[in-house]
């Protein structure tokens, strides 16, 4: 069974702290993504990566960075957390091409910044 695992389901951090959100997939997918979900705004893409060490900005990259040192792992970093980064963060992965179309999501990480 395919799996995307996010390291933390719930986190509480202070303003200004550095936050790491880790994501691992076991499907050998080329593409990995970080989204945030907020009420009324849907899922917004923060960053994505289509290969190891490659990264591309999504729609809302400000305040975030990412790291993809290995194919299976994609990390989201908040260099200095702010209260407006309180959100549900969703990691996802997909196979390149049309053989398998869908995007597979992790369970999500609910981050609260105080």
């Amino acid at each position, binding site marked *: 069974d395919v799996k995307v695992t996010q390291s933390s389901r719930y986190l509480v951090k202070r303003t200004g702290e550095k936050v790491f959100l880790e994501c691992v997939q076991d499907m050998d997918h080329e593409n990995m993504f970080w989204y945030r979900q907020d009420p009324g705004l849907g899922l917004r893409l923060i960053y994505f990566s289509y290969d190891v060490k490659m990264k591309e900005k999504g729609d809302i990259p400000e305040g975030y960075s990412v790291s993809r040192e290995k194919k299976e792992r994609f990390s989201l970093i908040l260099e200095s957390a702010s209260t407006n980064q309180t959100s549900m963060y969703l990691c996802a992965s997909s196979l*390149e091409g049309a053989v398998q*179309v869908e*995007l597979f999501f992790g369970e999500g990480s609910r981050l609260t910044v105080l």
Partner: protein
Amino acid sequence: DQQVKQNSPSLSVQEGRISILNCDYTNSMFDYFLWYKKYPAEGPTFLISISSIKDKNEDGRFTVFLNKSAKHLSLHIVPSQPGDSAVYFCAGRTSNTGNQFYFGTGTSLTVIP
């Protein structure tokens, strides 16, 4: 610029009836469209997809219809069940360098027993 729009934030339907969730898009380069279901505090789960060259795809109680000329798609759930109560997201996929997925804002479906 929202490439995928779901204009109905919420929908209530009686158990056993049909639920119809709608989605509009602007990007003609989408090659697939997908529907996801999401419960609170969980990640979205894939429901059904449709290729841009098809106009209908069916999987059990779920059918997706695509009208390319109107840039509109809809998800039909028949019969609706209380367990279908969730937020439903529509997404379009492009196949540029790496696949990219663009999501709508979601429709919260409540199925009333």
